[in-house]
């Protein structure tokens, strides 16, 4: 997304030992010249890794810049992704709108005013529905619940999926085969359909609904993390940890998972977006969040008929907020991906 590769910390270069040619192929030489050795950079901060960077102090007189931690570099790269930064701001505003706004706004979503079906105005910025309820209050409540569910789902699913994938990838062999067959099995069944089936039963409690959705959406993280772990487990620092007698548990949690943190974080953002879209779709169908709770999806169910009757505001506003959440979260995920994996933004022909 970014036009130029982010600036390198010169210390990367000065501390970089000559690895000889990297098997990376074409870019190896260019990478070397621009001081971009992402793999190395990550290797060096690995807990338990052989810290090649620190064993050799920089000797170049001109390059005595203070060393930055990897996460500071990530932050700096992230800040260059303008859309992602703007998205963080917009998402924060949406969160404020949903949580603080609902507390401050002088209408409640269940309070019926005398203004029936009025178009957006100063008094009711988002208009009202046919019962006279203030639509902005409804959207606030809906956004709040949809956000709560989405983040709960994303946290549960990414934590479980990551551990599952890490264990599977770490042990390989028959464990891996069995665990991955189970994932394949899950993938044969559309999450949305099972969500509808179970949501009908559990939808009245948003936490249970979130649990159901998490149980359906974890497979993606498991697959990705497994793939990452398969490569990370071959790295020297894992071998070193094993040679030092670290337990499998310690190796997985202290050495492997921190090293696949990047993909996990990116997956988390994708999960938030997926969860919002899935939950609102289920709620729209009537199998998700159920009355008296309000979700952006259930608002659209009501808004659908209203829109064909010329009261479009009841349809457009909830939809707009779903898009706002999903879009900003996706952009943030993209920014994080670029920031965490500099090879993705390499300048190329």
């Amino acid at each position, binding site marked *: 997304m970014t036009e130029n590769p982010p600036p390198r910390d010169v210390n990367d270069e*000065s501390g970089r030992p*000559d690895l000889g040619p990297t098997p990376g*192929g074409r870019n190896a030489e*260019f990478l070397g*010249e621009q001081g971009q050795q992402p793999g190395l950079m990550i290797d060096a901060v690995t807990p338990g890794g052989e810290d090649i960077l620190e064993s050799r102090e920089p000797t170049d007189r001109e*390059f005595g810049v203070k060393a930055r931690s990897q996460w500071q570099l990530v932050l700096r790269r992230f800040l260059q992704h303008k859309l992602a930064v703007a998205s963080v701001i917009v998402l924060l505003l949406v969160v404020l709108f949903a949580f603080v706004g609902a507390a401050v706004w002088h209408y409640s979503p269940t309070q019926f005013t005398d203004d029936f079906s009025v178009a957006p105005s100063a008094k009711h910025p988002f208009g009202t529905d046919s019962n006279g309820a203030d639509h902005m209050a409804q959207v606030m409540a809906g956004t709040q619940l949809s956000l709560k569910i989405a983040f709960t789902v994303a946290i549960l699913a990414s934590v479980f999926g990551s551990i599952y994938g890490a264990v599977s990838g770490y042990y390989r062999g028959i464990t891996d085969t069995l665990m991955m067959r189970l994932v394949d099995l899950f993938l044969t069944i559309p999450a949305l359909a099972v969500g509808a089936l179970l949501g009908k039963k559990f939808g009245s409690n948003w936490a249970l609904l979130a649990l159901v959705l998490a149980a359906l959406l974890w497979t993606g993280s498991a697959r990705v993390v497994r793939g990452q772990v398969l490569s990370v487990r071959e790295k020297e620092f894992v071998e070193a940890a094993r040679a030092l007698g670290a337990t499998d548990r310690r190796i997985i949690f202290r050495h492997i998972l921190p090293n696949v943190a990047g993909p996990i974080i990116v997956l988390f953002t994708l999960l938030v977006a997926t969860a919002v879209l899935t939950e609102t779709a289920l709620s729209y169908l009537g199998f998700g969040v159920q009355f008296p709770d309000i979700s952006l999806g259930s608002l659209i169910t009501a808004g659908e008929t209203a829109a064909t009757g010329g009261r479009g505001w009841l349809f457009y506003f909830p939809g707009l907020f779903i898009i706002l959440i999903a879009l900003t979260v996706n952009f943030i995920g993209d920014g994080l991906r670029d920031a965490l994996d500099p090879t993705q933004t390499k300048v190329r022909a």
Partner: protein
Amino acid sequence: MSAEYPDAALPDSASPGSAVLSVRDLTVTFPSDAGPVQAVRGVSYDLMPGEVLGIVGESGSGKSVSSMAVMGLLPKTARTTGSVRFRGRELLGLPEKEMTAVRGKRIAMIFQDPMTSLNPVYKIGWQLSEAVLAHHDVSKEVARKRSLELLEIVGIPSPDKRIDQYPHEFSGGMRQRVVIAIAMANDPDVIIADEPTTALDVTVQAQVLEALRAAQHETGAAMVLITHDLGVVAGQADRVLVMYAGKPVEIGPIDGIYYQPRMPYTVGLLGSLPRLDQRTQEKLTPIPGTPPSVVNLPPGCPFAPRCPLKSDVCLRTEPSLLPVLGAEHQAACHHSDLLAYEGAMDVFSTDPNAAPGQGPQGEQHLGEEPGQSPDRAPRQEPGQAPGQEPGQETGGTTGQEPGRPPGQHPGQDRRDPGQDPQSGAAQ
């Protein structure tokens, strides 16, 4: 090597017109947020017909990028200036269409990693024939016949069976032979081999070098051999160009470079090379520090921060390439005369405290007379150690010559050997 091409051992540098490939002031710059990355900062060389020129340097020294520039294979973002002439015809700025006619036909290239150089989804024969068909209007049968022939030359056993296999059924060494076969498919005049053996097991390296030699013999092509492995260069090249931070720092006939290096960096490279004639308990001498970033290079000699001979002048002005031992041997160092007397052991003392202060007499008085550097070369001639001239003439491969081989002075207190291989270019 020299026995095979005796005439190429002493190139006729006086007439660059006869050079098959002539590179002048080649620079390559990549844009980056941190400022332009000057990957190559002025490379010039002439490649004579049939000659093998070794380009040596650490990764990031610009050796590969300069060759990619010759081939016109750099990313579009790269800015290339200077001149690359093939048989007198300028290649830089040639339209892509005309350049494709040159690539593979006149100048062929061999890449570093044979495991990824071949397209995994096509058969070996297909990929070889494709190279033939790209420049020759022949039938597929003819191209296949030629492919079989090529596989035979590079030493692939039972080529008629192997030709219908996929790259993943080949070992790394075998794949590199295929890449070599592709390079020689159209009888090129120049073969550029970019670290052809680096990604291979040591046991296979010699075989691949053998195949490379066969390819060169068969086509009669001149070759640019890019490597960080001085051992590879020693066995193959007629002349050597040493690069550091995007610039040639020393160029000369192979023996001159090996026995009379006149640039501390070259000395350091040789010092980090293990040798058979070295006493076993001796350790290798590393070059301290790492290559500089080529973004916003500071003024002065880029090697100065790592150089034990550095003086004030080194920090101020970058030395240019000047003749040191005759016109063919040139070095870019303000203090190249000092090196006439010292081996790597003396230059790169492994006592970290002593290193910068080494040779205070040289550092101090030489620092005051930068203006004299142009004429220092003639002054040095008589000063060199006896017995080196013959070595240059006979072209003996490694240092059994009486001249003091660099990089092995006994009885020095040195660093932990565990770190050594990483700091030097040779591994």
